């Protein structure tokens, strides 16, 4: 089974795990995500852009007063792709068990 190359990248995998860890309909503040994963602003931005291009996350930039605020959440497509990725990982383990 092929692993989704968009999600397979280690940083993007962690980003998706964090977003899918929240309930459907919840969204994470950019800073919350950055601090949770220990990433730099630039690093997180680059990987979020890639995930957004794949349709796995949605990014919304708003203002709270005069302060910019960026919200991120996993799309339904992103949650399905992430679930499929986990299934693929579990299949790899099952195949190993079966071959013993």
């Amino acid at each position, binding site marked *: 089974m092929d692993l989704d190359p968009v999600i397979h990248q280690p940083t993007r995998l962690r980003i998706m795990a964090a977003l899918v860890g929240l309930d459907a309909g919840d969204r994470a503040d950019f800073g919350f995500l950055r601090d*949770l994963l220990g990433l730099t602003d630039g690093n997180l931005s680059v990987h979020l852009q890639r995930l957004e291009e794949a349709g796995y996350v949605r990014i919304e930039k708003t203002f709270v007063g005069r302060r910019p605020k960026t919200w991120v959440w996993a799309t339904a497509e992103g949650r399905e792709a992430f679930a499929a990725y*986990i299934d693929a990982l579990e299949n790899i383990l099952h195949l190993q068990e079966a071959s013993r």
Partner: protein
Amino acid sequence: MQPQDALDDLKAIRQIMEQARRSSDGFGGWFMVLWGAIWLVGFTGTHILVQTGRDPLINWLWMPLNTLGVLGSIYLGIRMRQRAQKKSFSSIWVSIFLWWLALAAFDAAVIGVFQLRGFQIALLIVLTIALSYVLFGLFTHWINSVIGLFIGLVAIVMATWLVEYFNLAIALLGGAVLIGGGLWVVRRGG
């Protein structure tokens, strides 16, 4: 991909998902820490004022403390909203706010109708807060129910047998359990 790599990825995924959930849910524990600290200071001060015969000063002690608690709660609510935002965020926190408002109105009505004084007011407020935590725990985390039961038990025991130490017991035991429980919730989430 090698099976060991797949296993490592699955472990990392579960860990991060759990961390994300805890970080967004556990922040509510800070409210308990805030009010635990206020109880610690307020009830200790009340005990000292009662013991030294300066009862009329009790209101002057609690007015700024309660104001601090309300402002602190508003600040924490804003900070919480700035982090992971829940779809049901507004409705949950509005409900909790309305609950505490209704409770305050209920206590005020009982105090007014039955002309409660001093210690009776404190006992009523502590017991209704304890009941609230027990009920919250039924819908959220069990730790809230345990905290409510403990505070209620302390209040009833002290009010029945050691009334002269009621305020001190609520300060030290009630305040400590709120602070400790709050920190536990922050750490564990939920």
